């Protein structure tokens, strides 16, 4: 075991009187594939929003590679090496597929707010864009506007944007939601491939995906983690079975 | 397709750019009216066009100018914008006009003067004369005075002279409040009024001196309260538009017992906007108004009213056309420079009295009436029960004000 890549300590989020996240503590080791599961409304996406800086937490801390990133803005967190995808596809609809990826590459390749060079002529960026397009299998669709892609393609692009910047901690929010069986298995392969050597935290409903991909699993119920462990441990946990597995099928 | 489109649009542009072909017709003298014809204040520009048209036609009927040439009025919409004015001015010049008439907005007036100074220097063969019949900023006959500019209306200083002449003879006025818009005009009035009152009525106390932002105030009640608190008997205000109408209306509504000495209340739309609030309270200065008892002007106003279904306002345009015609006849040419040289020394007798142009600054002087809004007059304005009646008069000489003009002659 190396040092933890991502540590949540007693993280809380209240919306008005409602507590959505009620003291989540979690440590994700570098290189680990960690899945967070839980019934609808358990606060999984909210937890991602807290980690990635979309919402400020009401209490507790988040640290990335030992550095405190609590209440930092999303872009600051991203620059520290944390990227994420969204549950509902969140692309740049009027840009082409290749442009979507390129935008995700620009900052990390050091071009930032540059307005004195042609974007097309940045060799390092173009090479990286080609790699990512190849990885997510959208090379043929590179000039299509992101807004008119099929659903599965949009999901692939969503993952592509998340990993393109080379962040070493990647948060994927239900990457296979709404996919058919065959699409799902291809997505699993894609995720496995693009997260080699990275730390992955994912929210997922599909248990087969979770058990297939995750090294460790945490179960979030009503804003609290009731169990963390390997697939076998979770399957064996009585608390989890009572709180979660019984409801998951009807919930979807 | 792109190229086709470009080509098409370019063709369109060149067509539209060329505009009306400039034909120099020797049998007509083109008078270009450059003023706002559209937008919220466009009605004034329209009215001006009709007045100019009316008097030009009368002159044509009386035999035209310079040996039978006809006057031809063409209107250009400058949208009240000084920059647009320059575009329209160029259009007018290309259309063959050498006489430019303009009234609304001294800013536009200054732009025309500036443009013509440069244009006439750069193109002496195409010289253009500017007849200003309603832009009242004193600057046009002082710092910015020009050989190519004639003002046929009493500027604010002259009007202030007439107003202070009136106040001089009104012993009931002891406290005066100055209420003006915060721009060149308002400031000119406040300076002139302060100085002239000091000379003519040293006992009068100026109890307030307000400058409000131009056309920005929506509620005038606090100003009324402020005026009332000073115990003023009279307010001198060069405000126009809403800034005047609402001020007086709110004052009437709150029962503020003051006399309003205004510069623009007798303009078009004035009585409509002021309503009963102005009766007996609103004073204004003009070279003429509907209830001046004179058969010639009465007949003229009737004719105008019949033809255009609106009241005559710009009586001075009759004088302008007459004097212009005489200059052209005397100069035996319609060349602006020669005409200007005749015009600048001219004295002229109108049905209402003696008038003259002062050569040093090209300011025209004429008798001025101070009138008050009333509901007991024979001629009503704008289909309201109100009109103006004379309360005082100053002869042309009595309104003369000094000038700092150092004219550059061609």
């Amino acid at each position, binding site marked *: 075991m190396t040092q933890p890549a991502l540590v949540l300590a007693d993280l809380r989020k209240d919306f008005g009187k409602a507590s959505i996240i009620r003291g989540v503590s979690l440590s994700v080791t570098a290189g680990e594939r960690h899945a967070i599961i839980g019934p609808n409304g358990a606060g999984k996406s909210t937890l991602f929003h807290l980690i990635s*800086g*979309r919402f400020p937490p009401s209490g507790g801390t988040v640290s990335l590679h030992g550095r405190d990133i609590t209440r930092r*803005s*999303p*872009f600051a967190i991203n620059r520290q090496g944390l*990227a*994420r995808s*969204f549950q509902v596809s*969140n*692309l*740049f609809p009027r*840009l082409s597929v290749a*442009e979507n990826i390129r*935008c*995700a590459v*620009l*900052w990390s390749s050091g071009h930032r*707010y*540059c*307005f004195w060079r*042609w*974007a097309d002529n940045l060799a390092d960026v173009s090479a990286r864009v080609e790699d990512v397009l190849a990885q997510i299998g959208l090379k043929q669709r590179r000039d299509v506007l992101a807004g008119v892609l099929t659903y599965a393609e949009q999901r692939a692009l969503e993952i592509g944007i998340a990993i393109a910047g080379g962040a070493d901690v990647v948060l994927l929010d239900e990457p296979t939601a709404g996919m058919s069986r065959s699409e799902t298995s291809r997505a699993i392969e894609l995720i496995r491939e693009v997260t080699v050597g990275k730390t992955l935290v994912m929210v997922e409903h599909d248990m087969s995906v979770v058990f297939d991909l995750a090294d460790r699993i945490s179960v979030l119920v009503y804003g609290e983690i009731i169990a963390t462990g390997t697939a076998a441990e979770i399957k064996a946990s009585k608390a989890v079975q009572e709180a979660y597995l019984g409801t998951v099928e009807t919930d979807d | *397709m*792109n*190229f086709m489109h*470009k080509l098409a649009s370019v063709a369109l*542009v*060149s067509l*539209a*750019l*060329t505009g009306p072909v*400039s034909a120099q017709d020797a049998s007509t003298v083109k008078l270009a009216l450059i003023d706002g*014809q*559209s937008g919220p204040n466009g*009605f004034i520009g*329209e009215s001006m066009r009709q007045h100019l048209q009316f008097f030009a036609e009368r002159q044509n009927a009386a035999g035209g100018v310079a040996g039978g040439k006809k006057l031809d009025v063409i209107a250009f*919409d400058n*949208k009240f*914008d*000084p*920059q*647009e004015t*320059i*575009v329209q001015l*160029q*259009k007018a010049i*290309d259309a063959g006009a050498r006489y430019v008439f303009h009234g609304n*907005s001294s800013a536009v007036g*200054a*732009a025309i003067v*500036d*443009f013509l100074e440069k244009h006439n220097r*750069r193109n002496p063969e195409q010289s253009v004369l500017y007849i200003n019949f309603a832009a009242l900023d004193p600057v046009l006959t002082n710092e910015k005075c020009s050989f190519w500019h004639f003002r046929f209306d009493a500027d604010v200083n002259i009007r202030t002279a007439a107003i202070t002449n009136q106040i001089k003879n009104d012993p009931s006025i002891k406290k005066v409040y100055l209420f003006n818009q*915060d*721009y*060149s*005009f308002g400031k000119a009035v406040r300076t002139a009024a302060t100085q002239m009152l000091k000379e003519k009525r040293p006992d009068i106390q100026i109890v307030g001196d307000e400058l409000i932002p131009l056309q*920005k105030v929506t509620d005038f009640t606090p100003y009324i309260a402020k005026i009332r608190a000073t115990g003023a008997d009279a307010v001198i205000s060069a405000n126009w538009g809403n800034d005047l109408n609402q001020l007086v209306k709110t004052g009437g509504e709150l029962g503020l017992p003051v006399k309003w000495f205004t510069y623009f209340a007798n303009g078009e739309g004035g009585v409509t906007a002021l309503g009963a609030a102005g009766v007996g309270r609103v004073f204004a200065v003009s070279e003429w108004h509907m209830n001046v008892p004179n058969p010639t002007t009465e007949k003229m106003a009737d004719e105008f009213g019949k033809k*255009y*279904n609106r009241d005559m306002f710009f009586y001075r345009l009759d004088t302008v056309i007459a004097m212009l015609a005489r200059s052209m006849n005397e100069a035996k040419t319609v060349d602006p420079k020669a005409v200007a040289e005749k015009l600048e020394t001219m004295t002229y007798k109108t049905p209402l009295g003696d008038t003259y142009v002062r050569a040093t600054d090209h300011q025209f002087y004429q008798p001025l009436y101070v009138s008050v809004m009333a509901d007991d007059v024979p001629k009503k304005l704008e289909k309201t029960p109100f009109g103006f009646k004379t309360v005082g008069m100053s002869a042309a000489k009595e309104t003369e004000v000094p000038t700092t003009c150092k004219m550059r002659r061609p």
Partner: protein
Amino acid sequence: MTSTFTSRHTGRIVWAAAIVLALLLPELVASKTALTKMCLIGITIVFALSYNVLLGQTGLLSFGHAVYFGLSGFTAIHLINLIGQHQLPIPVLLVPLFAGITGAFFGLLFGVLSTRRHGTAFAMISLAIAELVAASSLILESFFGGESGITTDRSNGPAFFGIDLASQLQVYYLIVGWGVLSAIAMYAYTRTPLGRMAAAVRDNPERAEFIGYSSRMVRLLSFIISAFFAGIAGGLAAINYEIMTATNLSTAASGSVLIMVYIGGAGFFYGPIIGAILISLIQLSLSDITPAWLLYLGLLFVVTVLFAPAGIAGLVERHIPPLRAGMLHRLIPPYLLSGGAGLVFAAGVIALLEMNYHITLNAHEGPLLGLFWMKVDTGQPMAWVAAIIVTLVGFYLFRRTWPIVANAWNDLDSRQPGDLR
């Protein structure tokens, strides 16, 4: 920018042709009026392009863009006056650059306040800033010259290699020079990393934050760049008109550039150019023909918002794929049919509006109104009935024939699925 010159070659040829034409235009149309108008249009094009850096590229709807145009213009006027008094050793030719820098400065100042937000909130803030500046301009008289503005004489400065700017022709070439430089620079900006990110932020400001970019910073930089080019336009206006007044920075001026860019097509680089030319010509020429021109402009704008949100450029771009596929001719018959009906409808509406204007404004000229090629007697009820019938019939025909156009498009789409849209 989704500008799609798929063949770069053709694109370059068109641009080069446009520039050459701009240079030759004074030779083709000789009148001074035309020159004056072309100068105005040139300035407007630069201004409209600068506005599109905000609207089209960064997705920021501003109601106060004239602020940067105007403030820079005033600065330019003061600079030219200083040059004229031999207090500033720069040629007048370079004044637009300094005006641009002024614009960028104010862009930074007000951008910091307004670019925290986008969408409606940004629009409101821009409106408030515009009102604030416009109102202040009347108070700060020594800089803005009050209502009559500040004037200058551009030819007072020392001549620069024989260019003294006394003639309008020299000014025209100055405007073309700066205009072409600015247009190239603004086009280049759309192709830079920041320019691409501006488009990304326009599309999805939230997601941009999760790929390392501060959306606000991208907006702010775009805002400054836009204000810079607005400033260049302002500087050119100062040289051209030799006068600047408070109306130059009024909200009406800001609204006007918005209308131009939107009608031209904010989504395409050349859209604002079309819009600037078209609306300038409307402002210059239609106002001579009818007092209702503002109403027509408003109608044109609302119709564009409702039915052609991509503007004229959008309509043009839509027809390029069928043209390439050699199927444009299939659209011509339905277009003629529906277009004819549309013309009837438009004629009816115009007749009604003109007759209405005539009776409210020109009643004194008698009931006769010169409309198209006819004389219409607005005193006759029959004339009104006829106009109403024409309008209704036109509307009905248009409603009936429009599906034919829609069908033709569907037909084209089904022949080449996916490629035509």
